[in-house]
């Protein structure tokens, strides 16, 4: 039978830890990407390092959303879920990943398991799945795998890959090549075994699986890369010519530093693992002070520790790039989960007034390019520039056009020419507050950097006039940057009933929700900020063209109807607070902190609710 054409599909593969579900997912995603499909991959990570087998908390795997066009977010409920045991499937049910009609492929080996308890639980689960309305397919995965391997734990993922290939009508030859390459190091025998497993799965699906789908795609014409956000940040560091990366291990930021620990040396740099977060930023500031701008990478709790040094960098005007890969908070919170809760901390946590530049990439591609921009801005504006990413971008994978590296992106050689002695180390331009800094080695430029209030010569100065002026100068720089930014692009009509404002990794799900509603004839648009400090200009003008404005964010806000929550006591989400105070527009907010990406349908439901409510009130 010919395959059903679909615009997009969501496939999940889950198993116990160590069964290779993630490899299977990655290879499937790769294959689709090669095919020309858009993809968005999300890792499903177990809560513990070595969880017990066949447990809900132990699910490990991937969700892959495949589309004809570019895919910008993880989507809603899955269309097919392959579970190597029924218990891990429950973790996906608990996460709300399935719906009535989801095809559930379960390994039926547990039906014949020697232990009574296991067989009973399996039977119970299957009955339950049917009750819930899932389309259950019991596949003999383990028994099929045993034909080729003694330890089926190592082969199931290849079998499943074959099965998925058949279901989605994908070209076998490139997968077979990929398998051969991936397992080449382990020898001929292993490669052949995996190819056989793959072929078996493929054949089984052709024979037994009733449905077939195709997500049509056009082969890509331009060079394309697929990677996750942390890899993109790391490659951005290299492309920007940054030579010093200083870090302390913290989830979910560390993989970026791991990548750099391997790669940066070849580009002439090195990764410093400091003794703690404070040392990491201190080291980076020292390196920046003495030459080229350095980078430090951390997450929310690390940011908290770094705030004193961040304030120092602002006061002493030392260029620095600080990458914060946000995670679930507060405090130790949810280290591997998604949240965008550090915006206000990034802005304000240092003592006194510490204006600094903050960027938030919205896609994985932007993770790469923003590092280059950040380094340049740090040097031109002489201060720290923060990049706020999050666990969603960090682990999600998405294809994007391969960047064409440019020499212009690289940091310039360290200036060692003699410094013009008539120019002080802080020669603030009276209008812009911008100045150029001397670097140790430049004769005539000798000065003592200090975090104390200081004058142009960097001499400690406690006079009130100087304090006023220098704060003004540092603040002025942000206004200057804002004057050089464009107003944000509006997604949808330029005016309407509702405007949704977002930032960070919610770009995809917000725009998908907006598109859904526009399809229903609703007048809703969205705007997504990349610059949080200073913010992009022209917001008030844009907001004025909409009846209502609200933010959608993944950080905490009080729900309006809850007990004791009044207009006065209600705490808004973070971007909403900023926008309300800077535009004086009564911007509302809706936010969730589920730890996972918000599905577009959920946002769409909320938007519909708001629009309906607004209509009723009119």
């Amino acid at each position, binding site marked *: 039978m010919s395959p059903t054409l679909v615009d997009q599909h969501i496939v999940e593969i889950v198993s116990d830890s160590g069964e290779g579900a993630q490899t299977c997912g990655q290879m499937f995603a790769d294959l689709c990407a090669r095919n020309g499909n858009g993809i968005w991959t999300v890792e499903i990570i177990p809560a513990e390092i070595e969880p017990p087998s066949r447990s809900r908390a132990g699910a490990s795997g991937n969700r892959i959303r495949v589309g004809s066009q570019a895919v910008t977010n993880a989507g809603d409920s899955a269309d097919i879920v392959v579970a190597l045991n029924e218990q891990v499937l429950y973790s996906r049910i608990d996460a709300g990943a399935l719906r009535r009609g989801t095809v559930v492929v379960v390994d039926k080996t547990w039906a014949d398991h020697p232990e009574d308890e296991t067989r009973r639980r399996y039977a119970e689960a299957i009955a339950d799945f049917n009750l819930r309305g899932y389309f259950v397919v019991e596949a003999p995965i383990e028994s099929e795998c045993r034909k080729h391997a003694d330890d089926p734990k190592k082969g199931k993922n290849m079998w499943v890959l074959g099965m998925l290939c058949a279901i989605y009508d994908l070209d076998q030859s490139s997968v077979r090549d990929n398998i051969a390459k991936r397992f080449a190091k382990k020898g001929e025998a292993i490669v052949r075994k995996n190819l056989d497993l793959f072929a078996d799965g493929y054949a089984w699906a052709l024979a037994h699986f009733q449905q077939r789908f195709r997500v049509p795609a056009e082969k890509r014409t331009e060079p394309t890369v697929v990677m996750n956000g942390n890899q993109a940040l790391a490659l951005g560091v290299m492309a920007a010519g940054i030579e010093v990366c200083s870090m302390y291990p913290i989830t979910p930021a560390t993989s970026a530093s791991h990548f750099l620990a391997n790669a940066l040396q070849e580009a002439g740099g090195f990764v410093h693992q400091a003794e703690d977060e404070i040392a990491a930023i201190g080291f980076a500031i020292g390196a920046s002070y003495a030459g080229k701008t350095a980078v430090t990478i951390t997450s929310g709790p690390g940011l908290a520790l770094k705030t004193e040094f961040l304030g120092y960098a602002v006061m002493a005007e030392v260029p620095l790039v600080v990458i914060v890969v946000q995670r679930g908070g507060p405090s130790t919170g949810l280290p591997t989960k998604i949240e965008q809760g550090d915006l206000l901390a990034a802005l304000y946590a240092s003592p006194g007034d510490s204006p600094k530049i903050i960027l938030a990439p919205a896609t994985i591609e932007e993770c790469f390019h923003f590092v280059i921009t950040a380094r*340049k801005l740090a040097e031109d504006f002489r201060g720290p520039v923060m990049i706020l990413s999050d666990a969603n971008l960090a682990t999600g994978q998405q294809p994007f056009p391969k960047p064409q590296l440019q*020499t*212009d992106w690289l940091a310039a050689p360290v200036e*060692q020419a*003699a410094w013009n002695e008539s*120019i002080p180390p802080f020669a603030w*331009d009276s*209008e812009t507050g911008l100045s*150029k800094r001397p670097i140790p080695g430049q004769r005539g430029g000798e000065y003592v950097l200090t975090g104390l209030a200081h004058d142009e010569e960097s001499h400690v100065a406690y006079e009130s006039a100087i304090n006023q002026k220098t704060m003004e100068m540092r603040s002025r720089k942000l206004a200057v940057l804002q004057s*050089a930014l464009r107003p944000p692009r509006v997604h949808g009509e330029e005016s309407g009933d509702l405007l949704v404002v977002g930032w960070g990794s919610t770009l995809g799900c917000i725009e998908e929700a907006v598109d859904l509603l526009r399809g229903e004839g609703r007048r809703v648009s969205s705007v997504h900020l990349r610059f949080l400090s200073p913010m992009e200009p022209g917001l008030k003008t844009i907001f004025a063209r909409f009846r209502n404005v609200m933010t959608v964010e993944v950080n905490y806000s009080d729900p309006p109807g809850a007990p004791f929550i009044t207009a006065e006591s209600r705490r808004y989400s973070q971007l909403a607070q900023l926008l309300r105070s800077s535009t004086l527009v009564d911007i509302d907010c809706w936010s969730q902190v589920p730890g996972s990406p918000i599905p577009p349908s959920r946002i769409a439901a909320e938007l519909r609710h708001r629009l309906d409510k607004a209509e009723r009130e009119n």
Partner: protein
Amino acid sequence: MTATLLEQLRTFHITGHGLAEFAAAITVDDFDAAPLPAEPADFCAGAAIAFPISALLAKRGPLRTQFTEQLRQVAERLEDLLALDDSHAAGAVSKNNLGAAAQYFRVDNLDAVMRRRANPVLRKAPERRERCQHALATLRQALAIVHPPFTLFHQDGHIPDTLHGDLHVSADPCAAALDYALNQLHAITPALKALRVARLDLDDAYDPPVHDPILHRFRWEAAGAGELAAQSPVIAVLTAAQAAATSLCSFTRLLRSGCPVLLIVTQPAFCQQDLACDAPDFAQLAMTYRDAFILQSSLGAPEHFRAAVDALAKTLRPALAVVATPSGGGWAESVILAQSAASPLFTFDPAAGPRFRDCLHVQPPGPNPWTAAHAVALNPAVQSHFRRIPLDTPERDTFELSEYLRLYEQRAPLAIPVLTLRSRERVAISRDVAEYCHDRQQARSRLAEWGAAAPAPEPGKIDSNEAAMREAAQRAFAQAIALVTKEGGKS
């Protein structure tokens, strides 16, 4: 009979003729001594040339690579500097250097604002740009030239095939090598200058009033050791005969040139014509030039040769290597000659110390009491100078050669110097050979004295044993002379 035999022996000793029936071949096994080391596989005349050259290449090769790498790196950094300067001309901020995020910016606004800063990004002064560009071009030119592994000048073409380099035949290899080496150094001088200019400009430290005159005066002699060592080695090769015929002037010029050129002179370990010891002693002659590195060694002393060549490879001075190559007596002859210090093995390194004796290092002779005669006895060309004496010939008129040589100082005795073989047979030696041995011994001890390798024996300070032996010998002499006079008088 005995007297007649003795007379005949004496006649043979003095004239080298007579007693032809006693002439017999001698092999090394006839000697009562520890066995010689085994002959190495590469024992041939070619090794004398190949070995120093390959040691030189091994030492200089990595330095050459390093130097080329330095040139390349500096050239690339200059290119970067010039490119950076170009980008400054275009704009402080541009769509390019902001990255793809430039779409979020009003780029011209930002650029305008950046230019307002005091001490804004300045383009380099035109003459600085020009200087950098010129330096860059020179460096690139230097990098483009392909140098041969080495260049060798010789007269007649007996160069081993294993060496891969540029070989040139020339009537005067010394002069040709020197001219070539100087040309090479002059050719690299612009690149060395450019390197210095580039390094200063990269640090933005080039100061025209200070550095222009220095640059103007710069010559290859001011180059660093690493840079000189990086140049492709230049070698001249001569045989001793060719060297003897060559112009003393070009020999001198080469060794006093101050530039790193190597002259290899090969001579047979033993040359029959040399019994009169009038062939030029090149190595000792060259020492008078004070500044050149000199090595005299032999293929028969591979360890010394190896060590000396290692030292030679390190020097950047003009160097002379005089190497004794195989001759008629083969390996055994070479080894014994080397161990007997008939041709002294030494190195002269002017950089080793302030005093002459610090520079000269003479190899002490080997443990076995070889003399030159033992060696030449093995050479078929001079076996006519040796006669095996019947066992029953009385001993009183024959002296073991080593003793004979020791007593030589006092009065050339008329006794007959002999070598004692393992079989207790004695072999009489002609006076020519004996004189040859004496001369070689003198040469070595004089050299050792210069090098103070062993303290010269002070006259008058002889220990009692020695005194007793001397006395006995003197009495023996007196007796012998008395006999001769009496007998001579008789007939």
